[in-house]
């Protein structure tokens, strides 16, 4: 546990924050060379960004392999920032998601005029924010990470300067995000006020000691932080910004928000809420249960009437956030640390899958909507005739989101429901699956449109650029692969030392 003041030198920081440092330095490097580059040379910038993501990813993997005994658990300045596998696996997911976003953007920026330099390095900074959120064990550091990600997101959403919807989306996101920031900070200030520390590990003991006395204030702080984090993950009732922002943002950024930003929100939620208040989870888990149900049901029901593909995906992502809350909700009735790990495994498994299938779907959506010049679902009519490959890939992603077997999405839901069954929350599992049946309606609606015949004889075939093909191909491989042999990923998760080997 923390002792005194530690002197920070570069090596100790590097040992803990290596991947983040690489990305930050990489971002600044890009920023600098962007200034001196000619416009026609700038197409190399996203590729440089991908390179940095790859390096950072390699370092994260290295960190995971190195972490075998308790002594090897690296941390910074008295558990301000820890390098446990919980953070590492999330970082990997962020990096994969962000790299896929950039890969998608290579194609997107060819057709939509966006400042490639800013776009790339702001995305890198945002990813660093997400990584900080996953690894910090201190409320202030978490907040810094949250703001870094949020501010980067606001800018990225509003980057299409001469597109009104982009500005509208950014504005809405900024406004609601600011409220969320205030709420989060306010909630955190309660914790600090009561416990005298912002360090989660220390505060945890104080919370346990003082819970009886200050139950109401602790619960208030929990609710406020939940609200703040809820905005990041599009949890009902803090989801209102989602459809407008998703619609307005450049499509790769929509994918980034829907996948990486949401995964970061969950990492933070799990870390803060469960660490600080886990001893009293029986007193508040019903809040999460209710929010999970509301999010699943409202997200899916609102999606039914959508005509715009990106808005549909926005509501679908709200619903998915509801499914992801279920592993947290069932913890209220679970006993034992293995169950906590199990819930976490289920959550991370689904998030990992979700990021990949979302990326795959948005890659196709970005291509098709650009080709059609609008984002209506009708733009997908007869996609099968125009490009069987894209049509089948999108069908697989949608089926995976709907939770059909032999796709990764099914197995993710399957693992979550297994966790629910184990805590005798059959009814919650039932609601979750019933909600996904509602989602059949709109997912299959899109699939039907994809396979319905174009009326006017000649259909120009869609050209898929190489970078997009890579994104789609990879996502397809993972979605189908993990649907058939999910143990591959589950085995990796089973070997993780979540909160360090001793925890």
């Amino acid at each position, binding site marked *: 546990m923390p002792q005194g003041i530690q002197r920070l030198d570069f090596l100790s920081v590097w040992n803990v924050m290596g991947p983040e440092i690489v990305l930050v330095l990489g971002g600044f490097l890009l920023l600098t060379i962007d200034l001196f580059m000619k416009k026609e040379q700038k197409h190399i910038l996203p590729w440089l960004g991908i390179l940095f993501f790859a390096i950072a990813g390699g370092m994260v993997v290295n960190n995971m392999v190195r972490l075998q005994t308790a002594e090897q658990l690296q941390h910074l300045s008295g558990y301000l920032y820890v390098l446990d596998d919980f953070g590492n696996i999330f970082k990997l997911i962020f990096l994969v998601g962000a790299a896929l976003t950039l890969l998608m953007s290579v194609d997107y920026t060819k057709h939509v005029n966006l400042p490639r330099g800013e776009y790339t390095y702001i995305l890198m900074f945002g990813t660093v924010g997400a990584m900080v959120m996953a690894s910090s064990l201190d409320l202030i550091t978490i907040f810094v990470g949250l703001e870094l990600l949020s501010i980067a997101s606001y800018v990225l959403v509003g980057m299409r300067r001469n597109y009104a919807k982009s500005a509208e989306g950014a504005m809405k996101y900024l406004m609601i995000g600011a409220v969320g920031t205030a709420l989060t900070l306010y909630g955190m200030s309660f914790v600090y006020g009561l416990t005298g520390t912002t360090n989660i590990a220390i505060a945890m003991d104080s919370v346990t000691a003082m819970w009886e006395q200050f139950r109401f204030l602790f619960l208030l702080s929990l609710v406020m932080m939940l609200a703040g984090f809820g905005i990041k993950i599009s949890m009902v009732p803090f989801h209102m910004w989602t459809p407008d922002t998703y619609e307005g943002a450049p499509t790769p950024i929509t994918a980034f928000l829907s996948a990486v930003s949401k995964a970061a929100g969950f990492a933070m939620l799990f870390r803060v809420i469960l660490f600080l208040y886990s001893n009293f989870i029986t007193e508040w888990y019903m809040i999460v249960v209710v929010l999970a149900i509301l999010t699943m049901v409202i997200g899916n029901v609102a999606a039914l009437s959508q005509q715009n593909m990106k808005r549909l995906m926005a509501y679908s992502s709200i619903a998915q956030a509801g499914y992801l809350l279920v592993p947290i909700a069932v913890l209220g009735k679970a006993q*034992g640390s*293995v*169950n906590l790990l*199990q819930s976490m495994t289920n959550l991370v498994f689904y998030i990992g899958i979700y990021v990949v299938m979302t990326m795959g779907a948005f890659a196709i959506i970005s291509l098709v909507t650009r080709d059609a010049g609008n984002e209506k679902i009708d733009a997908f009519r007869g996609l099968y005739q125009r490009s069987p490959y894209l049509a089948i890939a999108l069908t697989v992603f949608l*089926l995976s989101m709907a939770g*059909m*077997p*032999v796709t990764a999405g099914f197995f993710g839901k*399957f693992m979550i*429901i*297994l*966790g629910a*069954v*184990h805590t*005798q929350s*059959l009814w919650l*599992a*039932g609601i979750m*699956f*019933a909600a*996904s*049946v*509602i989602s*059949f*309606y709109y997912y*299959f*609606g899109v699939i*039907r449109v994809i*396979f*319905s*015949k174009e009326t006017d004889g000649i259909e120009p075939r869609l050209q898929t650029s190489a970078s997009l093909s890579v994104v789609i191909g990879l996502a397809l491989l993972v979605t189908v692969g993990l649907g058939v*042999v*999910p*143990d591959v990923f*589950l*085995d990796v998760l*089973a070997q993780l030392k979540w909160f360090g080997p001793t925890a």
Partner: protein
Amino acid sequence: MNSLLIAITLLPLIGSLIILFVPGSAKSQIKGIALLATLLSLAGALALLGGFDAAGKMQFQVIKDWIQIPAAFEQNRMPVPLRIGFDLGIDGLSLPFVLLTALVSFLSVLASWRVDYRTKEYFFWFLLLVTGLFGVFVSLDLFLFFLFLELTLIPMYFLIGIWGGENKRKVATKFLIYRGFASVGILVSFLGMAYAAGYTSGSMSFNMLQIADAFKQAGEMIPGDYRMWVFAVLFLAILIEEAFFPFHTWLPDAHEQSSSAVSMILGGVLMKVGAYVLFRIGVGVLPDMIAAFGTAIAVLGVINIVYGAMVALVQKDWRRLLAFSTISHMGIVLLAVASMTSAGLQGAVFMTISSGLLSALLFFLVGAIQHRTGTARIDAMGGISKQLPVLSGFLLAGALGSLGLPGMSGFVSEIVSFMGAFQKFPILSAIGTLGIILAAVYLLWAMQRTTFGPPGMVLEGAQDATAAEYVPMVLLLAIVILIGVYPAILGDIMNPTLTQLVAKIGG
């Protein structure tokens, strides 16, 4: 020999994949591939029948590990592993269903010969559906079972949604949502069962036999209300899946809007999956729950019998009439199963198979007649027996089989079912027999309005049954009569298995 089950299941799938690589304009080749694939599966199913050992054991087993999770959950601080297997096998209960699937799918391809609209996709989905159906009946692993069950859902959605009637989209979605909810229930209850079995035995598996054993041997370790919830969810799912009242409304719609070949496979096979789940999982794993809720299930069965028949009475469309007639007939299955007697269970399986065969036959005939008259509406027809004597004759034969004429499969089924039911629920069964009388009324009345009397329409140049149409008609009718005259042909296969099931119940 053991890979025969894999072959039967995968042949249609292989066929559908080959079709993907055939140009869409080569319609006759596509149809040929589909016919060949289903014919080979049929041959495989007959080979199964030939090599079947009627001792009631699970045979032709294929046991392969598929997904293994070292720690699915924790029990007493010990991780419980989870195994999902690619386990196939058949016994006397599944073999009749496999044969039914093989026969009806082959004949449905013949009935689909007229499909000229998007032929390639049609047969692609069709063969995929057939694979799903075979898979459902040969799976020994509940997870695999569910997977195949979902595989039937997607093709059927498209088969109704693209090749259906005017309201096809709405009805296809209705089908999807209803069956989707049924799937949810089935999956949740399967998981609940596998979990409970794993909890008592320390190792979680989705293998049906292991789950059934665990429930039998350590059943008392599973709390009563847990068993009750699992059963309630499963039973609710079966009610939706099998289109029992009050969850039946999707079935008449689906039949009304489907093409006749799709109706054949829907009414003939797909609609029997729910009953199969009831026999295999309901009776096989949770017999005590069926016994505990016997009266309620029987009442529901009788409601279905009478309600289905009464509603069938007022239908104006042949397809809807047949759909409600199916609901009524499957009500007998519920009543018979609820009795939990040997005869009741036997009758229920007989009824299911018989209803499958007769549905296939009748939907084929209605489709053939509709092709000539342009309508399936009963009041629009009239006197068609003058121009279409053969089709009308077969329709009459099918209707007679359906209303339970002695010498045909429907009669055996009803007699054995009610024999079982009367032992346990004399009054309810007496009310249930009303359904038999009503069936005679609505079927004969509909026949009379369709085939006899003054001609309702002029059919110029309408040709009676073609040579290709004789194959399904004669084949299906012959089997219906064969079972009716010599029920042992089916009974010998399934009785040992059913006896073992009933022995488990101890009733």
